[in-house]
């Protein structure tokens, strides 16, 4: 078994879709249409009817972005502690336990080294399904280690953000991860190594106000919610309803805050092109990665 298969079999994330006749239907929260789960997966978790980009599990996204079999995960042994013994209606410890038991990632981010076309990259992908993708000490540390690996090995960094912001349950320590990751990016910049920030729905709060907006290039998926303050907080402050499309990717593009809005199917190509430009190397044309399907093995699927 390859290392990725091992992780996948352990986490259950990459389980093949069972070839049963029992169809599993999912409602698109945008257009309210019923979609076959298989269709959704085959379409990169994009609604085939209205193009709504669903949230993705990190391994699905990694598969979409890097060359097959090229991803090596790092630091998956880092897990959240409970530094301030936080308890609201539930204990933070128990929230983490529940999240871990769900069998997905070991915290709200998956980081590792992979190859994208001809480029070696340090790739960090948020897991919104793990406590809302919130950034605590583990997320900050894993991103920082990823950046440091890139510095040591002359690699580019790509971070795919999908997070509600800092993890309140770690108090000030989660706020400090903004400083820690941003300071690490300064060292990366001094080495003239590229950093591309990809913003998925949602990217807000402390994640937005640190590394997510420090990309040499910032790319957003279509219609993603991106902002510092959440829409509800703004509505409470100004006591009026926000206009349609406010804080969405296209709005940010119009206001000069991001470089591109890129459809998920085109993301890998754009990233590869941009990296080639930044490094002034020839651009090799990539075909779009195949999504995980019942027919194609999700790990070994040959995308090239």
């Amino acid at each position, binding site marked *: 078994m390859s290392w990725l298969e091992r992780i996948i079999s352990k986490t259950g994330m990459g389980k093949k879709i069972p070839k049963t006749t029992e169809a599993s239907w999912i409602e698109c929260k945008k257009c309210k249409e019923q979609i076959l789960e298989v269709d959704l997966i085959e379409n990169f978790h994009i609604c085939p009817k209205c193009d709504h980009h669903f949230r993705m599990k990190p391994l699905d996204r990694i598969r979409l972005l890097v060359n097959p079999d090229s991803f090596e995960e790092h630091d998956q*042994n*880092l*897990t*959240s*502690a409970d*530094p*301030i013994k*936080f*308890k*609201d*209606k539930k204990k933070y410890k128990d929230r983490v336990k529940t999240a871990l038991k769900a069998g997905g990632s070991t915290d709200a981010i998956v980081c590792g080294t992979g190859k994208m076309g001809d480029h070696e990259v340090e790739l960090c992908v948020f897991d919104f399904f793990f406590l809302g993708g919130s950034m605590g*000490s*583990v997320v*900050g*540390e894993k991103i*920082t280690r990823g950046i440091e690996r890139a510095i040591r090995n002359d690699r580019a960094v790509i971070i795919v953000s999908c997070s509600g912001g*800092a993890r*309140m349950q*770690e*108090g*000030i*320590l*989660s*706020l*400090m*991860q*903004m*400083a*820690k990751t*941003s*300071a*690490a*990016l*300064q*060292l990366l*910049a*001094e080495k003239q190594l590229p950093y591309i920030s990809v913003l998925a729905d949602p990217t807000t*709060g*402390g994640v*937005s*106000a*640190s*590394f*997510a*907006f*420090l990309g040499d290039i910032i790319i957003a998926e279509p219609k993603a919610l*991106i*902002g*510092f*303050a959440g829409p509800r*907080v*703004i509505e409470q*402050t*100004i006591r009026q309803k*926000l206009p349609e499309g*406010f*804080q969405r990717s296209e709005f940010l593009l119009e*206001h*000069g*805050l991001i470089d591109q809005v890129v459809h998920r199917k085109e993301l890998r190509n754009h990233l590869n092109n941009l990296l080639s430009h930044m490094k002034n190397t020839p651009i090799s044309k990539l075909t779009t990665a195949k999504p995980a399907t019942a027919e194609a093995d999700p790990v070994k699927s040959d995308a090239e």
Partner: protein
Amino acid sequence: MAQILDFEKDIFAVENQIKELHSLSNMYDSVGDLTHEITKLKKKLRHMKRDVFNGLDGWQKTQVARHPERPYTLDYINNMFTDFEELHGDRHGGAGVSISGGFAKFDDQTVMVIGHQKGRDTAEKIRRNFGMSQPAGYRKALRLMRLAEKFNIPIITLIDTPGAYPGMDAEEQGQSEAIAYNLFVMSSLKVPIIAVIIGEGGSGGALAIGLGNRVMMLEHSVYSVISPEGCASILWGDKDKVKQAARALNMTSKQLEKLDVIDQIVGEPLGGAHRHHKWAAIMLKKALRSQLKELMALKPSELVAQRQEKFRNIGVFNTEKE
């Protein structure tokens, strides 16, 4: 009329008693010598203040930190420094008035001092947007910090904000980018940076000028990833659970010192800085002087390395073996 917090009521009662005894003994000779009574009450008052203020929890400290008479940035600047030359504008269309800054003399040394300014009266509060900065404020702060670096001038930041402004215009002008970029640049500035939380250290809006070689906190200030109100409404689904939230968030100076997030707690006058602005400034100035002296002895490269390392090491997690 001074605003009196719940836990200050008894203190004010004793203070009033002392005042009354004073005026009685001044007005009527017949009451005899009250010196003994007054001395006794004064002693009682000191003990009360100490007991009450040593035992404040997160929510009570938040109230002290937000006290309308607490000294603000400009009060500290006036009381600690001389020859303040305020500088304005982000040079990109914004005045950024929720943050004040400029050159000032600290003893004989020029420093760049930058801090959130909340505003004292209603008109000033509105003009300053209650210390909640727009992106322009952070960009102005950064401009001033770069100016300081150019002339090898140390930077002192005073933090006192409920948070970065959550408004439509702030979002349109790139609030996230403004904060993020400050963190990015501050980590590499080649001059000493000392950040002091003097009141409310509200989340990203506080951190945006808080990436210092030294991070100090006034005794009764607070510093948190989210306001108690925000935390209560998100995690408890009940914005009245502020007391619980404030306690859970570990936002007091003592708690943050234990987490190694701050380097020094600066004492306040007994009963809180709002009771004696000048005294509070004297105490802070003394602490700043010794920290600045230490940092001025470091080379630019050492300053950057020390700051980088300081923030690199913040975080608590488990490393379980596979």
